[in-house]
Each structure stands twice: as C-alpha cells, then as structure tokens.
C-alpha cells in the first residue's frame, strides 16, 4: 500500500523541535492520531534512535504540535502539544511545551491562519488546549514572514535569532488560586533550625518561594555542583519549602508538604554580582538584573524552568516583594542570571480594581525557525 502524505512543517521552537500539523490535515477521528504521530516520529523504537521517522531519540526531539481554528474568542488559534514516546508508544497530552509554544506564532502567520501585520511586528494569541491557557506571541516580521535572523541569544541554541516574546496571560494562582497566597508580597517564615527567614511566596505559572541567598550564608553565585554538595543548604531550602507549602495552603502540614516535592519550588535569589556560569563564561554585575538558583525536586536546576522564570518575573514586578527589592530596576526585559547564563523574562503586574495585585502576564523569550515544509509520509 502506498504511504499516506500529510502536510507538515518541521520547526524548532526554543530548545525543542517538533512536527507541526494542521488539525484539518489529520484524520477526522482523533483516535487515529496516535498511530499517525508515532509513525511520523519513528516510534516506538527499541533502539531508541527513531531512525524510521523524524524523531531524534530524545524527548526534546520527539514532539508533535497540532494547530487549528480557535475554540475561544480571545484566541487566534488552538494549539495542542503531544509528547511522543521514543522507545514506547505513549502519546502524552498532559502538559504544554513552553519551547514549542514559541514556534506557534510564526507557524500561524506563515500558514495564513492569522493576517499579516501591517507593521513589522505580529501578535498571535495562542490557546494551548493542554493547559487551557492563552499565550500571546509577539515577534518581528518582514514581508509577511517571521524574522529568523536576529541578535537574541537563547542558551542551548547555537548562534542568535529573532526574539519571540511569549506572554503567558493571567498566570496568577495557577497552583493555589491566588497570586499571593498569604495575601502579602513579603513574609517571615519560622524555619526549624534556622529561625525567622524573610521570603516571598508567589504563585504565577507555578507556586514558588524565593529566599535571599544571603539569608542562608551564600552569595547566590554558587554553581549547581557546589549547592548539591552543601547538604546543610539543601536541607534548609527544603525546610523553607515545606514551611512555605503550609503557609501557601498547598499542604496541611510539613509532613504533607514533604510528600508534595514538585510545588512550591524554592529558589535562592541575589542582587547582580560577578558570577560564573556552567559554560565557563563569567557574568559581570551589569550583565543581569537578578540572580537565581532554583531547586527542582531537591536538586539544583542547571537553568530556570519556564514556569519558574515567569514566576520570578512576576515577583520582580510585584512591589514589596523580596525579588523586587534585590533586582536592579532597568527598562525593558528582566535579565535573570542563572547557572547556564542569562535568561530574559518579563511580566506585567498591576493593581486591580480592588487594590489587590494582578499579574496580567509573565513573559519569556525564545527563538524559533522552520526547518522544513512539505509532507510527512505515513505507512499504510
């Protein structure tokens, strides 16, 4: 039997790549999608290489995006993310991929799903159906296509490209229902073995608790290996995290908090300073606006996860918070110094009608590019 041709675009988004399909080009019955997506990626492959498809044998190279007309009025497109198993046949829609989200704006523009902008900047409102959240993509264009060339450097991608600003709308209260779960931008937590510690507990994209590295006797310029080797520091950060979990209403007790290690995330922050990076490059104080060392499930993160970056951006823009106090105030995006280099984030935070703080969006920056356009071929 001849192979089935399905129109497809293969794109890099941030530090991932994926096949992007139009919803209309996929089988009408969504139950047929897993077979199509698995075949297109060359999965499952017991050898773990996906040589018989477009995959690259690793999760960041085994992704599929489906784009269709919007199902809500405040969006231009619907976008669904599928994580495709490499050695197994899983097709997982439980989460979004922030990296691939950055490719959706250029895709929508170049496929004619949104009109070409009159000016040299496009705004595409992306409804991610996995998370039921709207993401606004803002990116430079020329002649109706997304710019690819640019000066923006994204860690993890060689060279530079045109920046794509991804605004995650209304990120407040993602885990707890409230942007400031304690009602305050600054709290003092009584941490066992440490005493009172000043923290900011904030819930934007993901609940996080921020503590000054100095409160733990560190500079905040330490690299992940040094933090990992510092058992006392890790233990104190976990104590802070558990106390925050209770204070934020995520867990009823510290014992319960210990059983929910994924949220809140805990991070040490520091003012701009001279700081080494994992690549060996040294950051100067003027290279970034705030330093962060984030802990992910008990281990120091080598960078900043997307949700953590958004949460930090919202915190920096929230008056009275610890990140607001420690960060340099500068025009434009917030430059976050982290172990892998500098990450740009931003947020729009304002006082609501009733005087409470509202996060309108948290933003990250990525680059993307189209790597091929045409068809993928599916056996049978």
């Amino acid at each position, binding site marked *: 039997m001849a192979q089935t041709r399905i129109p497809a675009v293969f794109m890099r988004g941030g530090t991932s790549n994926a096949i992007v399909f139009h919803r209309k080009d996929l089988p009408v019955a969504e139950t047929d999608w897993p077979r199509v997506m698995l075949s297109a990626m060359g999965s499952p492959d017991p*050898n773990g290489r996906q040589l018989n498809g477009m995959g690259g044998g690793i999760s960041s190279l085994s992704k599929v995006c489906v784009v269709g007309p919007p199902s809500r009025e405040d969006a231009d497109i619907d976008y669904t993310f599928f994580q495709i198993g490499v050695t197994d046949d899983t097709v997982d829609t439980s989460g979004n991929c922030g990296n691939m989200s950055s490719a959706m704006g250029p895709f929508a523009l170049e496929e004619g799903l949104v009109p070409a902008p009159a000016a040299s900047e496009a705004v595409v409102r992306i409804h991610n159906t996995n998370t039921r959240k709207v993401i606004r993509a803002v990116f430079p264009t020329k002649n109706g296509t997304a710019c690819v*060339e640019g000066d923006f450097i994204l860690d993890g991608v060689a060279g530079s490209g045109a920046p794509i600003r991804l605004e995650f709308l209304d990120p407040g209260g993602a885990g707890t229902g409230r942007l400031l779960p304690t009602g305050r931008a600054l709290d003092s937590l009584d941490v066992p073995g440490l005493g009172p510690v000043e923290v900011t507990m904030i819930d934007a994209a993901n609940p996080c608790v921020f503590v000054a590295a100095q409160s733990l006797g560190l500079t905040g310029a330490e690299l992940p290996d040094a933090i990992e080797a510092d058992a006392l520091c890790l233990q104190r950060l976990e104590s802070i995290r558990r106390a925050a979990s209770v204070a934020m209403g995520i867990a009823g007790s510290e014992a319960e908090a210990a059983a929910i290690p994924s949220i809140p995330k805990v991070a040490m922050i520091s003012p701009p300073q001279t700081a080494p990076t994992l690549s060996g490059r040294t950051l100067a104080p003027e290279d970034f606006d705030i330093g962060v060392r984030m802990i992910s499930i008990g281990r120091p993160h080598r960078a900043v996860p997307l949700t953590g970056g958004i949460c930090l951006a919202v915190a920096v823009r929230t008056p009275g918070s610890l990140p607001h106090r420690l960060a340099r105030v500068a025009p434009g995006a917030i430059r976050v110094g982290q172990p892998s280099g500098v990450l740009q984030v931003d947020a729009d935070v304002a006082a609501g009608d009733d005087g409470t703080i509202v996060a309108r969006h948290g933003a990250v920056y990525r680059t993307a590019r189209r790597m*091929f356009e045409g068809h993928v071929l599916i056996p049978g």
Partner: protein
Amino acid sequence: MSDLRGIPFVFMRGGTSRGPYMRRSDLPQDEATLSAVLIAMMGAGHPLNIDGLGGGNPVATKTAMLSRSDDDWADIDYFFAQVAVDKKLVDYAPTCGNILSGVGPAAVELGLIQPADGTTTVRIRMVNTGARAESVFEIRDGSPVYAGQQSIHGVPGSAAPVELRFMDTIGSRTGAMLPTGHVCETIDGVDVTCIDVAMPMVIARAEDLGITGHESSQDLDADAALFARFEPIRREAGRRMGLGDVSDKVVPKFGVIAPAQGDGAAAARYFMPWKTHPTMAVTGAQCFAACLMLPGSVAAGIARMPDGAGNGDAPFVIALEHATGTIDVTMECRVTNAGLDLRSAGLMRTARMLARGEAMVPNHLWPE
C-alpha cells in the same frame, strides 16, 4: 524575501542511517558554500542538532546529493556528505552503504529517473570513492514501494527490500581476490585466508584462536589476549598482501568465522581492527560471504548453504550471524575449478521516505 530559503528534498531512512536526499543541481556548486548550507540544514555544531534536520547522532546527520550520471555504466551519481553532529564540519571523503540503500528510491522521488513498474535496477556511481553498485527494488504506479516484509537489524518492523549489489569489489585495494596468491596459509601457527573482496581481510577460524565466534562484542573487546594473538598475524598478513607495514593502519581488517549458532549460514565477528564491530560492516559482510564460498579457504565447508549455491544459476542469500543479529548477503557467483567467479555481492537493506518538501536554510548563506 524571507530570512529562509527552501531546498527541495526527500527525507529518507536508508538502512540504519537517515538524512535528506537532494538533487545536486539544487545545491551550491562550490564546496565552501555547500558545506555552509549543509551545516545549517542539519543543525551541525550542537549535540542534539536542535536547529536542523539532524538527530544528534552521526547516523542521522548524513546527506546525499544525486544527479543523472554521465558515466557510460551508471544511471545516477551519488555524492555523499557526512555532516558532523557537534562540530560545524562536513566530510566528503567517505561514502555510506546505508544511505546508498535510499539512493535508488530517492532518485525516482526526485524525478531523476522514471523506471517502469516492476522490479527495477538502478546503476549507481559513488562519486566520493568511485565505487559502483546496483540497487534493485520494486516500482508500482511509477513510485518506489516502501511497504514490505524485509527486516533489517536496527530498524523496527519491516519494509520493502532494497537489494544492493556491489560491483568491482574483487581486489578493492590490492587488485586481487587472493593478493598473497594462496587460498589458505599459516601465520604464527594459525590458518588464515587473506582475501580482498570489498575490503582486504585476514580471516581465521574462531576455534583456532580459542574462541567460539559467538561472543558479544563487549566480551571480545575485553579479551586483550585475543587482540594480542591476532595483531601480529594481521601485520604479517598485511605485509604478504602487499599493504606494507600495517601496524598503524586499520586495513586489512581481521575477521573470525565459525559455524552458525542460530538459523544463519555461519557466524562471523569483524574487528576494525583494534575494536570489535558492534554488528557487521557492509564491506566485511561481502568479504566473509566470498570467503565462505571460496573452495580451500579457512571458511570453506563451515557454512550451511542453500541447494545450488555457487552453481551460477541464480543469486542466493548467505545469512551471516553477527553479535546482535544477522545480515543477509546476496551472492551472484560460480564456484569453478580455478576458485570463485564472483559477479557481485549484495546486501538486502530497506529504505523509507519519511518526509518530502523543502529544507529551509538561512538565505544569507547562499546569496544568488
């Protein structure tokens, strides 16, 4: 004008490799510009090739450039380029037998040839090395057939067979199948056959080296005494084969042959030569198969052969067992009083077109 330009391509798996196949005429002619375009296309210079079509593995950063051949014999010229993974480099020196599996079908898909329906034979000249091969596969409704029952090691499932017949393999480097003039000789007390079919090899019986020939590549690599035993034999054989002092050369290769462990014709292990090949080299497989058919060689009589093998009437298949599977070698040969009359040695591979369209590269790399 967009920042990107498209280059027509078909993206194929060929054997256990993968990459874009393009018309040579759709790419820059000068090598520096060509390299820049291929590096960008594949995303070379990054461990995951995140910004290109590569898959973070040298078997997934290969490219093929095809054109109609002006050679009297060949239909298609196949120019191979191995793009590096984490370096911005392109190597035009080698060819690739796996990517070769996709060349015939890709030449059809790219409109370079229009074979009639049925079994077709495409004659291919490998531009990088000058080697020649025939590719035999099915055409239906004007297009290559991809679905089929042929399995190859390293690729899940099955697909339509692509038979590759390598030509001019006799005396590939030495000019003769038996460059020492002997079908079997003794070096350091071990019987060997010094044979040059596709690759010069020194082949010995496993039992003569105190192994079974059924060991895993890891076990063999751990056996320092084995390497110490055969390396002097290989060096002396290299001298006798006219290859000079081969102490720091990877050719000739060393191979061991043994009775089959499973359903194959025989078991073979291939040394590169200071490390055991994890499976089997395409070239080595042809050399082993010829040795098995060669009367009087160290391998004669070891293999289970199909009826009529070597009578010259029809091609037949020798299934060689390697450490993790088998590889099928299709032989067209006749055993004569003078030895072995080998027309071609071939391999059963498969290919699949995975995608087609235009591969996008930055415009500024290739200004016109």
